[in-house]
């Protein structure tokens, strides 16, 4: 079965499970801060203009009034006249024709801007904003009516500037506040929006990992709620389907095990009867002899089949234990071949190789592979022992007729018989059992075959200590 990647791949080939959430938060914060910033700047500008215009209007009105008043002032009284402004927090400078200058505060003696002076000489009321001794002032000036004298009034705008600075600070603080609140709200919103997505991903992963009882909490009746409900329905259906399939499979496995088990008792009697009858063949009358021989052989076949059915159903049930020991493969294989009387037909090459593995299972596997080879090849079978670096390799090489390529992928299937040439004595389960046993030991069996030159079955087994060696 093909493995599907857990996550769909993005164009950069990598997946950022938190990426969307971060992007949402960043977008939310950007929108909030840009709009809050624009509002703050605009309101600051509006307030500033309003305050400065107001200040100008008040000051201009005051200046007009004072110019009329100044028309009555003589040079002698000018000192008192201008000093009165100091009490109003302003400065005043009165310049009489001929350049005589009376200043409200001699220490400050504010400079008279030349441009403004030009305006005033032409008889206009003028104003200019300037700093005097580091303080902001609005200068309003005009020609005293009916005279060439000029009056310059310096109104402090310090309080306005202070107010505007406070406003700026307040707006900046508010803007920062908006930024923080936006980040927090954005995070919360993103989490609440994308939380169900993350939960669904996690649930899907759990289900893929075999936890079929995983369900999503169905929250409020919104899109996510509907999604969660649909997801749960899918999971219910999947769980029910898998449960039904597992139950069917378990039933089938149990049935096979029961059949094999029930066959055992009559088969035990049959085998005992056949073995007794077989030892009496020479005493039987001629016409009975051949049928008895055939019957004895067929009871043997039946016995092999039932044995193998039992074994494969135990392997399917996962009830076969592995009892690892240190095994010297070369002497083990030699003993196995000797015990079966194959010394003349099977040669052993290579080694030495020591594995930590279950000798009973190795015996099952190698007896099967070697037995097949002997059966199909007759003689010239070789068992080659070696390693490929990471695994111990045991090759069973025969010089038999070989397996046609179209059958090669199926030889480990249960009851698969390649062709009439290879069919016959075996139950059809031998290779399947050998493969199951190899997998139980953490190994594998592969096959290569050439119709002209025979077959090689390779058993690979882990070199390191496969499992904990537990011994009584």
């Amino acid at each position, binding site marked *: 079965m093909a493995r599907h990647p857990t996550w769909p791949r993005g164009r950069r080939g990598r997946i950022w499970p938190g990426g969307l959430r971060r992007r949402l938060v960043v977008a939310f914060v950007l929108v909030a801060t840009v709009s809050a910033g624009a509002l703050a700047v605009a309101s600051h500008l509006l307030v500033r203009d309003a305050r400065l215009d107001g200040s100008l209007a008040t000051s201009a009105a005051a200046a007009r009034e004072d110019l009329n008043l100044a028309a009555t002032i003589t040079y002698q009284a000018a000192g008192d006249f201008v000093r009165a402004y100091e009490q109003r927090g302003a400065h005043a400078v009165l310049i009489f024709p001929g350049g005589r200058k009376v200043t409200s505060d001699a220490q400050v003696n504010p400079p008279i801007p030349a441009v403004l002076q030009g305006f005033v000489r032409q008889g206009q009321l003028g104003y200019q904003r300037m700093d005097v001794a580091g303080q902001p002032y609005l200068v309003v000036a005009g020609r005293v009516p009916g005279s060439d004298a000029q009056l310059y009034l310096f109104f402090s705008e310090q309080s306005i500037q202070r107010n505007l600075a406070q406003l700026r600070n307040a707006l900046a603080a508010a803007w920062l506040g908006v930024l923080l609140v936006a980040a927090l709200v954005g995070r919360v919103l993103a989490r609440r929006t994308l939380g169900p997505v993350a939960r669904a991903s996690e649930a899907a992963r759990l289900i893929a990992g075999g936890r079929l009882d995983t369900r999503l909490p169905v929250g409020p009746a919104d899109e996510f709620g509907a999604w969660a409900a649909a997801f749960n329905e899918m999971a219910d259906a999947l769980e029910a389907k898998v449960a039904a399939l597992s139950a069917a499979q378990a039933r089938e496995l149990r049935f096979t095990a029961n059949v094999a*088990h029930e066959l*055992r*008792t*009559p*088969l*035990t*009697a*049959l*085998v*005992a*009867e056949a*073995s*007794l009858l077989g030892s009496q063949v020479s005493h039987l009358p001629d016409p009975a002899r051949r049928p008895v021989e055939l019957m004895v052989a067929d009871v043997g076949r039946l*016995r092999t089949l*039932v044995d193998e059915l*039992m*074994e494969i159903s*135990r392997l399917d049930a996962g*009830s*076969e*234990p592995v*009892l690892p*020991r*240190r095994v010297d493969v070369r002497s083990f294989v030699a*003993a*196995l071949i*000797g*015990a079966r009387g194959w010394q003349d037909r099977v040669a052993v090459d290579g080694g030495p190789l020591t594995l*930590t593995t279950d*000798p*009973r299972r190795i*015996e099952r596997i190698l007896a099967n592979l070697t037995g097949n080879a002997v059966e199909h090849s007759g003689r010239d079978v070789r068992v080659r022992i070696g390693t490929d670096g990471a695994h111990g390799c045991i090759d069973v090489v025969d010089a038999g007729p070989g397996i046609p390529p179209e059958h090669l992928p199926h030889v480990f299937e249960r009851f698969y018989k390649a062709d009439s040439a290879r069919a016959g004595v075996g139950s059809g389960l031998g290779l399947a059992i050998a493969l199951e046993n190899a997998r139980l030991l953490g190994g594998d069996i592969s096959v290569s075959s050439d119709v002209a030159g025979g077959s090689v079955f390779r058993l690979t087994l882990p070199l390191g200590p496969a499992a904990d*060696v537990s*011994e*009584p």
Partner: protein
Amino acid sequence: MDERLLLVEDDASIREIVSIGLKAAGFRVATAIDGREGLARVRADGFDAVILDVMLPSLDGFEVCREIRKFSRVPVVMLTARTDLIDVVVGLESGADDYVKKPFELPELIARLRAVLRRAAAPTEAEPILAGRLEIDPAGFTVRKDGVELALTATEFRLLFELARRPGQVFTRELLLQRVWDYEYLGESHLVDVAIGRLRAKVEDDPSHPAVIKTIRGVGYRLDRA
């Protein structure tokens, strides 16, 4: 020859054909059809060996074997229909000396029976062996620990005797299978492991920390004179 065997087997066909086969091989055979009857006959008559089916009505083979072990060291061969290792191990732990998997060829059963009978006969060497606090007397078929007699089955006795003849030597499972059980080739090594466990339960002060019969990882067992 002429050993008296008891076959406890509930299936009539198997009971009859196995009896015929065993008689043909020269044994005298009595039969019982369930666990209770089998146990009663062993108690009443005594036999040279008992062949015990595992799946028996009324009292299963494991139970019968455990009961027999309470009063007799008669060799017991289990007939196990189930080849699940757990059943084999339970059978051996209940005190069986060997087992044969169903279905079996008669010569296989007869070979196993002859082996347990040989084991139950006294070893030819009659020299008592002293191994630490153990005193093993082949002639009397007895083992004493600190002077107290231990109740060992024939298999357990034979296993201890083999180990004690060469204290300090490591015996592989294969060698013990050959010497004690008469298996010619790769037998079932849990026969050895289970018997070692039962033996330790009887001879060790603390069977979970054996001081007399040591396990040599990946190799086998060794008797120390501790």
